[in-house]
């Protein structure tokens, strides 16, 4: 399998080349080639793995010089953080960064390990590779058109597109490394790389807000990274191994708990959610990448990997409690947001909470749901971010209020957005089925609180998505016209995503049996059908109803003869549905706004209590776990 280094090396190479190319056109082509290459390589890897029998395979036992290279890399990253922290006067970050690097290097030299495999391909890492390669690749393609329009809109920011693309590709490389690593030290290295790159991406515009948010992201992820480093040290000292699988099998309490903490920070669970919410200041492709294919999925990936060791333990309880709480708290706060990207961010946090809760329970059924949720979430969320980004470029705003009647102004983008939103919560689409399985699994696990969280969280989730959707489909003519400035490559990426959402829904039974079941088999050594086939057939029927019924009804409504009249405005309609006669006898523009319940569900009201509560849970439970183990 010589293809592995190529898979990681190719995006690295592109990342090195891109900033050197000054001409925008050529750079675009290089990015296309790079993204295409990543996809081809990932597909080739998949093909080779499948022809080899789709078994778990381990690689690279002797890797001395790579290890030294990584130490050098880590030192470089630390240096970079120290330099930037001094530059922007964020000194506490230095402590975190230097501390964990020192700890990591000390561990490596103090406890020399038996040679063991450093990388491993199994079903789960293969799935993560596919998500990173295809969704990440498409996001890179999308970014070419997006960045052009972005800098036409935002003249105030310095155009650093070359750097931006370089970071995107670097991120993909780090993500491949992360999901393929079996050795914790390697994984930790890639983990740190993703933290630093996300920091650099968030700070792209170099405004004060961006810098602050990027440092917040950095320190939160470094806290998780610190946990990771301590976990490695403890595992090396007490267990004598730094292989992830070995740690999971022994179920050693302290390393598992600290790794879980790292997973929670990376997947932006409360109390660490604010870094992901702050990440919105960056250009949209980076948000899409952080939210869907990479960064946060790395945290979830680690937790799923750990899940056999979490089942039935106190650590598992902590993880699932934090996840469930994040699910409901974030979905409530999403109600009060009118910024499209903010809603998406809260929804990401909330959905990840559900996945994390599933991983914390650590039963077969819940992991089944978690993996499916992860797949559906990646595709839908990436698409939604791209759609919102394109709308923002066309309208000059990403406020949901300004998307009123978008279907008349930007119909193509509205359909894409609509499919994405439907994919996030409506009946026949995968997210909901996964939620269904999660609910059943929570009941079987006897977890009262999680069931309550899920029941109420589903209701609030429904509210904020429906609200957005109705804004889009409203037949409202606004004063200002919009011109669609979306580039062809952006549409290319979004159409593929939309196709994927629909296809994944149609292929649901296939997905469940061929993709998810092997992952469960590898993690738990056994796998039985979670959904009975009859439900899968029901799903197929429902899907037909979703595609077939609207189509026929569309024809019926076409056929029905209708007379159009103005909407009712107490008889004071000016005749065009957008103006009415006000009490002075003047025409007044109709303005309809959504309901945000700011006083009830606003971030200002809910964020602080949730952070305090979740930190309390986290600290108390961590103390109990670690105290109990020592």
């Amino acid at each position, binding site marked *: 399998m010589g293809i592995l280094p190529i898979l990681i090396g190719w995006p690295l190479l592109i990342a090195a080349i891109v900033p050197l190319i000054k001409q925008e056109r050529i750079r675009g082509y290089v990015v296309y080639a790079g993204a295409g290459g990543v996809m081809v390589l990932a597909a080739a890897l998949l093909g080779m793995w499948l022809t080899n029998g789709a078994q778990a395979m381990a690689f690279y036992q002797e890797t001395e010089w790579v290890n030294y290279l990584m130490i050098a890399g880590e030192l470089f990253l630390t240096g970079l953080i120290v330099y930037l922290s001094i530059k922007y006067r964020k000194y506490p970050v230095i402590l975190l960064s230097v501390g964990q690097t020192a700890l990591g290097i000390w561990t490596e030299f103090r406890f020399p390990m038996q040679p063991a495999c450093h990388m491993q391909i199994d079903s789960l890492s293969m799935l993560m590779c596919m998500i990173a390669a295809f969704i990440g690749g498409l996001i890179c393609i999308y970014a070419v058109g997006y960045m052009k329009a972005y800098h036409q809109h935002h003249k105030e920011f310095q155009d650093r597109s070359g750097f931006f693309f370089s970071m995107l590709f670097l991120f993909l490389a780090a993500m491949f490394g992360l999901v393929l690593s079996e050795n914790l030290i390697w994984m930790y290295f890639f983990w740190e790389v993703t933290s630093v790159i996300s920091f650099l991406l968030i700070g792209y515009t170099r405004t004060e807000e961006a810098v602050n948010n990027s440092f917040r992201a950095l320190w939160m992820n470094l806290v998780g990274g610190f946990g990771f480093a301590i976990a490695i040290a403890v595992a090396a000292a007490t267990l004598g191994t730094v292989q992830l699988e070995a740690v999971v099998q022994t179920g050693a309490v302290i390393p598992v708990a600290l790794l879980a903490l790292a997973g929670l920070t990376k997947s932006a669970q409360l109390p660490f959610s604010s870094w992901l919410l702050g990440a919105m200041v960056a250009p949209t492709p980076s948000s899409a990448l952080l939210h869907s294919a990479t960064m946060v999925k790395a945290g979830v990936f680690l937790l799923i990997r750990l899940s056999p060791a979490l089942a039935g333990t106190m650590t598992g309880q902590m993880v699932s409690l934090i996840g469930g709480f994040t699910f409901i708290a974030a979905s409530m706060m999403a109600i009060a947001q009118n910024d499209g990207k903010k809603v998406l961010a809260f929804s990401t946090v909330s959905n990840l909470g559900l996945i994390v809760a599933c991983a914390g329970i650590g039963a077969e059924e819940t992991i089944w749901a978690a993996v499916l949720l992860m797949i559906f979430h990646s595709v839908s969320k990436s698409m939604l971010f791209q759609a919102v980004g394109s709308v923002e470029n066309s309208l000059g705003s990403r406020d949901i209020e300004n998307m009123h009647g978008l279907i008349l102004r930007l119909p193509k983008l509205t359909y894409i957005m609509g499919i994405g939103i439907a994919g996030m919560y409506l009946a026949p689409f995968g997210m909901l089925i996964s939620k269904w399985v999660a609910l059943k699994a929570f009941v079987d696990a006897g977890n009262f609180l999680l069931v309550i969280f899920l029941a109420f969280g589903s209701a609030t989730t429904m509210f904020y998505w429906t609200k957005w959707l109705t804004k889009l489909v409203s037949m409202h003519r606004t004063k200002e016209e919009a011109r669609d400035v979306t580039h062809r490559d952006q549409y290319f990426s979004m159409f593929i995503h939309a196709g994927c959402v629909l296809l994944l829904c149609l292929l649901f039974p296939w997905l469940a049996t061929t993709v998810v079941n092997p992952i469960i088999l590898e993690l738990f050594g056994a796998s039985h059908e979670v959904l009975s086939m009859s439900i899968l057939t029901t799903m197929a029927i429902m899907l037909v109803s979703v595609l077939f019924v609207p189509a026929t009804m569309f024809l019926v409504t076409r056929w029905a003869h209708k007379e159009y*009249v*103005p909407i*009712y405005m107490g*008889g*004071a309609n000016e005749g065009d549905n957008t103006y009415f*006669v006000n009490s002075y006898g003047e025409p007044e523009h109709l303005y309809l706004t959504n309901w945000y319940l700011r006083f009830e569900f606003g971030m200002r009201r809910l964020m602080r209590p949730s952070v305090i509560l979740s930190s309390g849970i986290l600290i108390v439970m961590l103390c109990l776990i670690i105290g109990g183990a020592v």
Partner: protein
Amino acid sequence: MGKLAKSPWMLHYDGSSCNGCDIEVLACTTPVYDVERFGIINTGDPFQADILLITGGINSQSESVVKQIYSQMPNPKVVVAVGICACTGGIFKECYNIKGGVDTVIPVDIYVPGCAARPQAIIDGVVKAVELLQKKREAFASQRKKSGT
């Protein structure tokens, strides 16, 4: 009795009445008169109404409103002018701002006189309107058939 006759829903609009007739219209829905016996619902929505009940004369401000509400009612529909002001303009006829009765703006089918019109008279007018509605429905159906073929 035909389909429409059994379920006439009405919309009550106050043009510029002194509210005397309005009180009487509302009296029709009270237990004493209970117009719901006839399937009549006093709906507030022109889209769902069959009978437009107007009290008071039309002034220049309410003119466009009445026209618009009338246009938002689906066919077949009937207009009932309740009270003398709605019929002719009544004592306000000569006022500078009054255009006259409802029929100066939209076609009126039934005139219910009185100042104020008594509930019995209003119910009688509505029953007349129901008969007319039935005729209009037949005409509407045959017209629809013709245009269909």
